């Protein structure tokens, strides 16, 4: 963020003055939580600093429309994160062994799940499942094949497919 120029910072300051209260109110109605709304409103403006769109807007309405879209995306992110977190924690709780992750570890896990979910979103459910099984606890192809009712050969294909999809994204070649 060091590269933010003075003029951009001034533009943001103006935008912040004109829209922050409105945006936070809009978010609060949508999220039903004042503290979540405050966080996301902050995030929305921070993001303006790091995006080229902060050249400025043609009009007051254009700025609002942009902010609303950006904030809406952030709400969806937040809901998705909570949904993933809940699913993960619920499954953990049904596991006989007591495993209580620290808040930091939990945050890292949720971030990792979201990232991997994105990377694997274009694959079939079976390919994604095979890959996660192989990656998380090193389940052998034979066991994966049995569980998914496919051949071992197919499991190897799934793993290659999934790895390629992820590696393309990692290498910035997927768009």
């Amino acid at each position, binding site marked *: 963020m060091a590269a933010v120029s003075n003029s951009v910072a001034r533009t943001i300051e103006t935008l912040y003055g004109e829209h922050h209260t409105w945006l936070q109110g809009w978010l609060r109605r949508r999220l039903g939580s004042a503290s979540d709304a405050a966080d996301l409103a902050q995030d929305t403006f921070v993001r303006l600093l790091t*995006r*080229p*769109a902060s050249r400025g807007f043609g009009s007051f309405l254009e700025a609002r429309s*942009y902010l609303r879209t*950006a904030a*809406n*995306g952030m709400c*969806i*992110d937040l809901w*998705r994160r909570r*949904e*993933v977190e809940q*699913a993960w924690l*619920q*499954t*953990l709780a049904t*596991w006989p*062994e007591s495993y*209580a*992750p620290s808040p*930091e*570890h939990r945050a*890292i*896990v*949720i*971030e*990792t*799940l*979201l*990232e*991997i*979910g*994105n*990377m*694997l*979103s274009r694959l079939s*459910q079976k390919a*994604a*499942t095979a890959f996660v*099984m192989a*990656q*998380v*606890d*090193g389940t*052998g*192809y*034979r066991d994966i094949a049995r569980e998914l009712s496919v051949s*071992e050969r197919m499991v*190897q294909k799934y*793993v*290659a497919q999934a*790895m*390629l999809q*992820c*590696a*393309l994204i*990692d*290498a910035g*070649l997927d*768009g």
Partner: protein
Amino acid sequence: MSAEHLDPALRLGDHLVSASGTNADFASLEQAAEWYALFRGARATEQDHQAWQTWLRERPEHAKAWLHIESVSKRFDPLRAGGREAALVGVRVARKGAVSRRRVLGGMGAMFGVGALGWLAWRHTAMPDILLAWAADHRTGVGERRELQLADGSRVWLNTDSALDVDYQDGIRRLRLLAGEILVDTARDLARRPFYVDTRFGRMQALGTRFAVRLTDDQTRLDVFDGAVAIRNVAGVTLRVEAGQQAHFDADATALDGAADRAREAWSRGVVLADNLPLKVLVDELGRYQRGHIGVAPEVADMTVMGVYPVDDLDRALAMLTRTLPIRVQRPLPWWTTIGAR
């Protein structure tokens, strides 16, 4: 296969200087993914390894592609502690969300003049490697060993390429071995809290004791040197292992194997013990402390070896072996060592 599951011979580590500056292309990534899937299964042969090495050196794009594969593989590390089921459910829910999210981002991308994935990439770059390292409380790299002193005075040694979580609470002392190997020397606890070591295959309770635990892809191995350890695996099968005994267990079964192996605590002193060990087994053990490939030709693999070898000085260990055995060591590349007949 995440980093811990990845065969050390398949890890490039710092040997990739030549690849910096190049970018992987689609074809290279496709081939790298194929290699990965092959090695992740159990059917890769020595010929496959050699073909892979040749492929790797063929073009810098290949090495670069392999680095991307390694990087993807490592991202799964934080999920391991919670186990497979939780990870599967989490990814399933995250995948579902990702679809609707992309739709929203279509509009956003147009506004920013960037693709949806460019946007996502930005959202997620904020997860630096340093965060990933937090996933385990203690972690050692290949060739690294560490001694830990725990709050109650218990001592734990982490062997090469290992990861351990330490969880001391009011009523319980609990270690969770996520990867690799530990040697534990428990201290008497004033609060009389039980001392547990957990792996994904089950739980071990120390009953006043010194013992070594090694976690591999398919089982946990336990060597007890002092006192006793009670095992309870995921399926609920129990087994008591006394001093001088060795046992192993996986999620389904537990079994005693015979006498405890002194070599399983020798590493904490920086040495590998060979007491009539086949050369191949000794070299595999030394290989755990090295990046790169060490191959042993079949005609010398079964020669038996005696002696004490340093874990952190492969050159010296190999020189010692060359003096006593009719073998020849060749190293065409820094990370490629082969041992054959003289």
